[in-house]
């Protein structure tokens, strides 16, 4: 393993130093009381692409990789220290061979408050096809194009829990750059993105301190959330550098407000996410709205089948970072077999009624024995007009098989 390749750039070391003091400063009794837990997983994965690559530099053949993510937890009283490192070694894409610290934090739970200091993971939102309001953690795009894998984010987070809802405040020192496939990788833009030379609107570059605040509450059948973020936007614009045949990622300072709502009624889940973002081209709004309905125990079996529908709209102009979701429909189904192996399938399509482009996806998984899981993933990109973002993936349809061992 070539660790020099691992892009671990955490600009702010004081948090880590503070964490080390906390770690070293433990009373030994805390460990003895047990609170130590070691878990995690190791996995192997292979991707088979159905067509030869489209762009020069991209490697042909299957893409194989190994992944390791151990988790260490120390817990005592109302406090916990968590350490979750991550590493993947990939046979095809130099950028996908990468490591990260997913979590390294100290957490204290008070009666009416929570404190988290260190590198953490935060998720906001309710919809399935796109996570609009979720902005704290940077996307680890080389992991999965579903945008759901996230890089660890240094943070100071204080949440106060009140009868009128939970208010959560974030100070985010240090920016994480989005990962992108390298020149030899698949599922990339026509010209590679030069992740070694990012540019920033802020003079502080990746040391700009970002802020966020979130409000969350449950009112009967309604789950509501609202948040505000100021800082370096997680999505970069891609600036064409023709002489050097590359894109330069450019990170702007943005203001973003967002809201997420869910109304739950019997077997119906109605969902809404919306944002307004200022700082990338003209100020724009984006929306995901839809529902999920579940047929439980279909045909007197123990299988549950859910139907998902979401409408996606994004009002950004051409100067903003590109998105697949300008105006699309997501249709999907979720099948839960409710068997001992927890087998499940999620299948869906995002299609653009205007451009007619379609993005199909199937994810299936089940457990084998007590410690293994198997995953199947299929992604198909179809009918993308030339020049669109999806067209760059038009020869990258793939089938992926993965096996994980959990310990």
């Amino acid at each position, binding site marked *: 393993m070539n660790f020099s390749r691992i892009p671990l750039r955490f600009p702010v070391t004081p948090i880590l130093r503070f964490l080390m003091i906390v770690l070293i400063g433990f009373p030994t009794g805390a460990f003895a009381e047990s609170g130590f837990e070691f*878990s995690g*997983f190791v996995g192997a994965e292979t991707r088979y692409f159905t067509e030869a690559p489209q762009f020069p530099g991209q490697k042909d053949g299957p893409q194989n990789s190994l992944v390791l993510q151990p988790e260490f937890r120390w817990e005592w009283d109302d406090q916990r220290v*968590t350490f979750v490192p991550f590493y993947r070694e990939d046979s095809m894409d130099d950028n996908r061979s990468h490591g990260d610290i997913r979590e390294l934090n100290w*957490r204290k*739970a008070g*009666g*009416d408050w*929570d404190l988290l200091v260190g590198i953490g*993971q*935060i*998720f906001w*939102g*309710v919809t399935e096809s796109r996570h609009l309001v979720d902005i704290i953690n940077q996307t680890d795009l080389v992991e999965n194009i579903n945008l*759901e894998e996230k890089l660890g984010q240094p943070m100071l987070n204080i*949440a106060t*829990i009140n009868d009128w809802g*939970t208010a959560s405040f974030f100070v985010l020192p240090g920016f994480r750059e989005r990962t992108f496939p390298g020149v030899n990788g698949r599922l990339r833009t026509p010209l590679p993105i030069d992740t070694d030379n990012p540019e920033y609107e802020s003079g502080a570059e990746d040391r700009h301190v970002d802020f966020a605040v979130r409000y*969350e509450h*449950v009112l009967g*059948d309604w*789950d509501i959330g609202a948040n505000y973020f100021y800082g370096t936007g997680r999505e970069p614009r891609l600036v064409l550098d023709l002489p050097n045949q590359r894109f330069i990622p450019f990170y702007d300072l943005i203001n973003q407000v967002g809201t997420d709502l*869910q109304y*739950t009624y*019997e*077997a*119906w*889940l109605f969902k809404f996410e919306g944002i307004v973002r200022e700082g990338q081209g003209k100020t724009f709004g984006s929306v995901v709205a839809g529902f999920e309905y*579940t047929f*439980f*125990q279909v045909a007197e079996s*123990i299988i*549950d089948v859910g139907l998902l529908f979401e409408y996606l709209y994004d009002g950004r102009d051409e100067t903003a970072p590109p998105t697949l979701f300008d105006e699309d429909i997501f249709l999907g189904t979720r099948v839960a077999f*409710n*068997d*001992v*192996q*927890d087998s499940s399938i999620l299948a869906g399509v995002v299609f653009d009624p205007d451009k007619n482009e379609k993005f199909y996806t199937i994810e299936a998984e089940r*457990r084998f024995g*007590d*410690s293994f*899981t198997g995953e199947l993933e299929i992604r198909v990109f179809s009918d993308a007009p030339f020049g669109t973002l999806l067209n760059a993936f038009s020869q990258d349809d793939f089938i992926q098989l993965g096996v*994980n061992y*959990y*310990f």
Partner: protein
Amino acid sequence: MNSKKLNKSLSALALVVAIAGGTGASTAFAAEGAEAKGFEVAARSDRSDLGFGDSSVYLKMVLRNAAGQETTRSLYIKTLEKPNENVGDKSLIVFDKPADIDGTALLSHARILEADNQWLFLPALKRTKRISSVNKSGPFVGSEFAFEDFTALELNKFTYRYLRSEACGDLTCDVVERKPRYEHSGYTRQLSWIDQDIHQVRRVEFFDRRGDLLKVLTLTDYRQYQDKFWRAHKLSMDNMQTKKHTDLNYSDYKFGSGLNERNFEKVALRRVR
């Protein structure tokens, strides 16, 4: 027909009507008595638990299929009592094994006649999802227990009818039929055996939507906590239709740990991982 005969016939008819009516009245009275007694037996059992405040327990589930193959699950359950019988208890379930669902958590705010409020926490994504809980009769993590079988049995979720008293093991049990008032229940009725000694449920038979016997639950190893609260430490469920079997083994019961509402709010799920 002469008038005398008619009178006789009418008298006879009146007698028949009177007898029929009288019998009807006494049957109705008996039914009301059976319902009152059934409720009384169930209430005494349920109320023996009143005032436990909060509890936490470790649960190991052993699932066995018809071929005898076994798989296990383990999880922690924390419960907060809501003493008002028209409000359900709150519970937090955190999975420990199998390892791939370690840290997955389910928060439930039980309601009596409506669907519970439930949130699922997925540790890999750190995502909390409000889920539909209208269906409580599906298998819980692949076991023979449905969610409605082993969460706190709220008194007012059923109507009751006392059937008989009979020997159950070394004890004498009252047999009470209970019918779910929750419209989406997976059962048409249940028969419960409640002992006359410590008033705990010893056996439950579950009848499916077709009215056929589906499952039989046996509760054993009752132990008393704080000189008051009885808890069964082994629950065995036999599915009579599929021949599958699930054992629940409870251990490390703790009462009165000072858990409060804050520990059972949606935001508390973030503290799991």
